């Protein structure tokens, strides 16, 4: 695959799959305000994914639009990080439906939104004008996502014994998957290697953990590779739900 196309898809699919997982909360959040917040964050990410997938389709030049890329690819063709495809609860059966853990969801949102903020900041200067424009717009949105999720990480981490234990447990589950946030290579004139984000991300994360009185686990050597299309067992189940309509009624439109 063209390296620029691959780079844009890694970001586009991460936004798309993250949005899909978050949207599973619609109607199920602990309070109405959080239902609205999670839905709105999912919506922003979906909008970002749409713009990025449209752009990816143009780079590819094979006539595929956002919908064909979102709904009619095979699992191996998705380039999102594994972190965002994990179910909303660690103990979820395997299907990605049903189980929802608010602590895990907020912790993941914090990790991804800090990362997206750092990445979009840099992509504003991309030599690819379309990508730079998408980044400048998306950056404003993810700042609100980051503030919201980090507030919750602190509130629950430095909260009751129960809330802290659940945040700490979520951290243990997600921690090995954070390595992939820095795994993708850069493309000259398009965007930086994700490894360039790592020092600042880790510094911000450490400050957040301290404020939230959470203890980071020992560094993990695990390296997930969703960015190469190697996904977890959860991805196929999720795509089954996500692609159901287009697979059942090919070409269906509103």
């Amino acid at each position, binding site marked *: 695959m063209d390296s620029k196309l691959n780079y844009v898809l890694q970001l586009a699919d991460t936004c798309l799959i993250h949005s899909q997982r978050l949207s599973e909360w619609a109607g199920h959040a602990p309070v109405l*305000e*959080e239902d*609205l*917040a999670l839905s*709105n*964050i*999912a*919506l*922003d*990410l*979906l*909008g*970002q994914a*749409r*713009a990025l997938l449209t752009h990816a389709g143009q780079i590819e030049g094979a006539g595929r639009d956002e919908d064909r890329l979102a709904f009619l690819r095979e699992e191996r063709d998705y380039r999102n990080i594994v972190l965002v495809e994990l179910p909303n609860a660690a103990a979820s059966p395997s299907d990605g439906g049903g189980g929802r853990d608010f602590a895990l969801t907020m912790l993941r949102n914090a990790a991804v939104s800090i990362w997206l903020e750092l990445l979009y900041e840099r992509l504003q200067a991309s030599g690819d*004008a379309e990508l*730079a*424009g*998408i980044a*400048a*717009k*998306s950056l*404003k*949105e993810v*700042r*609100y996502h980051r*503030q*919201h999720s980090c507030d919750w990480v602190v509130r629950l981490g430095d909260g009751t014994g129960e809330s802290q234990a659940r945040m700490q447990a979520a951290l243990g589950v997600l921690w090995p998957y954070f390595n992939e946030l820095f795994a993708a290579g850069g493309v000259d004139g398009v965007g930086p290697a994700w490894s360039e984000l790592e020092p600042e991300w880790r510094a911000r994360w450490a400050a957040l953990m301290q404020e939230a009185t959470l203890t980071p686990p020992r560094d993990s050597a695990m390296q997930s590779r969703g960015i190469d299309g190697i996904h977890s067992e959860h991805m196929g189940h999720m795509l089954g739900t996500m692609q159901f309509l287009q697979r059942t009624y090919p070409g269906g439109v509103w």
Partner: protein
Amino acid sequence: MNLAAARERLAAVPDPEIPAVTLVDLGIVRDLRETPGGVEVVLTPTYSGCPATELIADDVRAALAEFGEVVVTMQRTPAWTTDWITPEGREKLQQYGIVPPQCSAEQAIRLVPKLRCPRCDGGRTEQLSRFGSTACKSTWRCIACGEPFEYFKPI
């Protein structure tokens, strides 16, 4: 072609989600120009995922239909900012019960503002959530009168 008439017509198109203000009030309309077959309207979407974007384009097409072929162009750069909401738009939002942005988008990165209740003008208010019923608003409550209200987030 009477561009002034088209501009006037365009200026009356309400936002589909907050009909108290028009698209022009919100600063979404970047340009209106004449084309050989009609008019072209350049719009800047508010939020990436705003579900009203397509509806807005449809409303603009319908409003200007009598001026010939209407081409709606979406322009992402420069990104829309609440700094573009007109003074008139801010006043209308306030009257409608939505507190307009109280600072520039740049300042909003660091500040959580102190808001006055749009109903009772009480100064003791608290933010309930950074998000609200639409992507562009956050949810607040007035401690004095107990009523919830919304704030148009600076972005």
